[in-house]
């Protein structure tokens, strides 16, 4: 009976694999949210703007009902007058009467611009990054044994934990799976 042997990779091959995993990590880190989730966040933000607009209308109505002279100064006091509030007010005024059609318009325009980028929810991204970082660390341990064996120079960005031969579970427990900024 023959046993299946894992192919022994050369140091260069391991380094190619390391580069590939690093590229995947970079791509995953740059992944956008799924379209529906992104659209949902837009809806929540615009709804908040509409709410700001409705509160303004209500406060202005109160001032008019009380027979006040509604000056610019009074208007600004009604809106709380921070640049962000004013922006939200303007957006709310524009969007409030037709929020659903604005969202449909944005969704249709976004579909036309879809460049096929990777899209992941926050949980999916975290899980995928952890998986990739575990794979990277495994490869870096193999790479380090290749360096030790051949006497080749180390990559300047080699993971210090892998260079020391820290076991993967210990490295993971101490946040050392990847030397990149996490």
């Amino acid at each position, binding site marked *: 009976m023959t046993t299946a042997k894992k192919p022994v990779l050369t140091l260069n091959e391991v380094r190619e694999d390391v580069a590939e995993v690093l590229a995947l990590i970079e791509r995953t880190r740059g992944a956008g949210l799924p379209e529906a989730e992104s659209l949902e966040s837009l809806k929540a933000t615009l709804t908040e703007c509409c709410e700001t607009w409705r509160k303004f209308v209500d406060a202005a109505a109160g001032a008019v009902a009380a027979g006040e002279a509604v000056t610019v100064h009074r208007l600004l006091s009604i809106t709380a007058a921070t640049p962000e509030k004013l922006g939200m007010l303007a957006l709310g005024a524009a969007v409030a009467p037709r929020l659903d059609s604005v969202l449909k318009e944005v969704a249709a325009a976004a579909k036309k611009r879809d460049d096929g980028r990777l899209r992941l929810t926050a949980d999916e991204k975290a899980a995928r990054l952890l998986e990739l970082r575990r794979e990277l660390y495994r490869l870096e341990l193999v790479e380090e044994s290749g360096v030790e064996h051949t006497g080749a120079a180390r990559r300047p960005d080699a993971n*210090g934990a892998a260079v020391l031969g820290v076991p993967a579970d210990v490295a993971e427990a101490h946040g050392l799976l990847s030397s990149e900024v996490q």
Partner: protein
Amino acid sequence: MTQAPAPWRSAARARLVRLKSEAEASRAESQRLMQTCVAMTQALRTTEAELAELERRAAFTQGPALAQIERALAEKGADLDAHRAALAAARLRHEETRNAYGMQQRVLDGAIAAAMRVGLIDSPEAV
């Protein structure tokens, strides 16, 4: 009863010490090569000055004495070429060694940071 440390810890500590001594050896080699370059540059300047002096003397000399100076000039010119080639090679070697040291130091810094995180050492000075 105290628990024996995991075997990887002593191996990692030994590797850390080795990384540091390798980086220190590269730094010492880089400094030695830099001093060599300085000495070779001084020797080159001396040869250049000697050549200039011979050229000055040749301008005021005639007959057999001139032939002798011209021979000396040719020898000195060859010396100068050899000095320049040796200096260029030494500078290249110094540059390579300095780069290698820089990379080893970066790896060492990463290893020290990792060693501190897993409690292998308390401070960089502990290596």
